[in-house]
């Protein structure tokens, strides 16, 4: 579409809405991103934070084995959190999709309600549950199931629980929307052809909701790499996620150029994963569905 045609065809309200959004995104997303990119090629300076000359030393430093290790650890954490999220969210979304329309709305509403509270506050609440004096330990002690409190806080497990909890709705919603679209006649047809409940789930439900599964996994995996405050509060002062590395560079080490280079690399990685997803989705659309029936 030519830009000219577009401007002439749209009404005042449409132009205004698009204009405002564009302005907003330009000011607060595009310019900062450009600044980050520029910064990533500069040098650290104790007085002015950043200074010339332009160089690529920051990127070279990012590919140091130390940081590659951080990247791999971070990816492992995020993937584990994503898998946990999927395992919790799928049965949940399936159950909601079987409710009648009115109850569906209530169930989804109830799931969203906690998210009106700031996620930082809710992360502190997890501390209260997992801590040495937390709910779980107290309960287990009272039941004489354990002799001394378990170390639940400041473990990878705690971070995964935190990520799962904070990101769960981003998994549930795409899963729910693809489960809701399932044609119930297909289940009947599969049953008629001799498939038991498990076979129907494996051969029909899973392949047909694959777009939702992939979308949900991306929506959990991508942000989880950057959720540094969860790793900070629940995992202790370790560089568990890529987000922690970036935060440390900006706030503690005050090495803005290196932090920027790391941010740019993270953005590129996420962009690459999204590109893979859209390519897969486009391919799937041409073929009439993702997956291939699990045979």
């Amino acid at each position, binding site marked *: 579409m030519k830009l000219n045609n577009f401007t002439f065809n749209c009404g005042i309200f449409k132009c205004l809405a698009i204009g405002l959004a564009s302005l907003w995104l330009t000011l607060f997303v595009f310019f900062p991103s450009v600044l980050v990119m520029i910064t990533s090629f500069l040098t650290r300076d104790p007085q002015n934070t950043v200074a010339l000359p332009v160089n690529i030393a920051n990127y070279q430093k990012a590919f140091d084995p130390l940081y590659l290790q951080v990247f791999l650890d971070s990816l492992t954490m995020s993937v584990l959190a994503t898998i946990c999220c999927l395992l919790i969210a799928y049965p949940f979304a399936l159950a909601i999709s079987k409710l009648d329309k009115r109850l569906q709305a209530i169930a989804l509403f109830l799931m969203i309600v906690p998210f009106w509270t700031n996620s930082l506050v809710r992360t502190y609440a997890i501390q209260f549950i997992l801590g040495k004096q937390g709910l779980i330990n107290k309960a287990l002690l009272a039941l004489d199931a354990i002799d001394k409190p378990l170390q639940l806080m400041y473990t990878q497990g705690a971070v995964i629980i935190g990520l799962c909890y904070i990101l769960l709705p981003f998994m549930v919603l795409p899963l729910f929307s693809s489960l809701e679209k399932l*044609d119930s*006649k*297909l289940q*009947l*047809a*599969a*049953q*008629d*052809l*001799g*498939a*038991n409940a498990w*076979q129907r789930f494996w*051969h*029909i439900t899973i*392949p*047909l909701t694959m777009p939702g599964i992939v979308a949900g996994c991306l929506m959990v995996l991508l942000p989880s790499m950057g959720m540094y405050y969860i790793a900070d509060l629940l995992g202790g002062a370790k560089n568990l996620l890529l987000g922690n590395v970036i935060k440390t560079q900006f706030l503690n080490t005050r090495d803005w150029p290196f932090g920027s280079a790391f941010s740019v690399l993270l953005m590129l990685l996420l962009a690459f994963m999204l590109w893979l997803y859209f390519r897969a989705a486009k391919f799937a659309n041409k*073929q*009439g*569905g*993702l*997956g*291939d*029936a699990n*045979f």
Partner: protein
Amino acid sequence: MNDSVALLQLRGLEKSYAGHSILSGFDLTIFDGEFFTLLGPSGCGKTTILNMIAGMEMPDAGSIVLLGNDISQVPAEKRPINTVFQSYALFPHMTVFDNVAFGLRMQGVEKKQIKPRVLEALEMVQLAHLADRKPAQLSGGQQQRVAIARAVVNQPKVLLLDESLSALDYKLRQQMQLELKRLQRKLGITFIYVTHDQEEALSMSDRILVMHQGKVQQLGTPRQIYENPANLFVARFIGEINQLDGEIVSVDGDHTYDVKVEGLQWTLKAQHNFTAGDKVHVLLRPEDLRVEYIDDFHASQYLVGTVVERNYKGKTLDSLIRLGSGIEVLASEFFNEDDPSFDYRPNQKVALKWVPGWEVVMPAEKSEVAA
């Protein structure tokens, strides 16, 4: 068709939804190898019967006996019965081949056997060359055939077809009617077809069950149902019919009566028993009526009316004729180009004739059911 073997017996089936009874005390016997049709308007209970045979709904009471075994509590996936759904319900993420192979794979049929059996089934519906396509890449008629192949490949004892042709356009539907009938003869599988389309039912079935509001109206061959409808509902539901009101004047012998219709007296045959003074309906199919120019000399011997409308239908010419009593009747005649008196003008006076014996005389129904 092997008439003597009862394949499927439904006995005393009961079903109600939320206290509302759909079926009650429903009995039916279906013979091995027949093409059986459940015909009725929507909401008559025909789909409920089909779902109970398939196992997708369980009866509240009664039994479903297949070859001597009560299967009424057997889950759908374990019944040797397959369904062709109205919406086809093909699996969109699988190829045509995988769709057809699905049932065999679920039953754990040996891998080596699957390919030849699937290809044979696809060959039968002339779609073997499209085995690698996805359902979305097929036309409606092709999808229909895949759905049929997917069901028959399992060699079911009974094949259920739920309004299976209703999504196709008229021409394709007629073609598929012939194909279905041919396929059924070739395979020898018992077909139970559900439809609200009387034309479909007449052209394909060995026997038809006409239903209305959960009640059996008539069970018989297409010919019995068309030519001797058991009641006014069946008469009206199966094709167009003209209804004239009359009264028995006298009994004329065995099932022969003098009947007064439209001010004239006729000698008519009837299957019912009447006595003098009984009110009756005289039913006439539009294609059994013949319209002729009136001849004043014979006017007293025929039904006389004026032409209200003439509709050119291609094959036939349909005339709407208002009789002396104000009742309008439809006559449907095949063209006869050699007949100079074939075309009539509106408002023209004409006589109506029919071949004696082609009429149906039945008792007048007080509360008439709308067809």
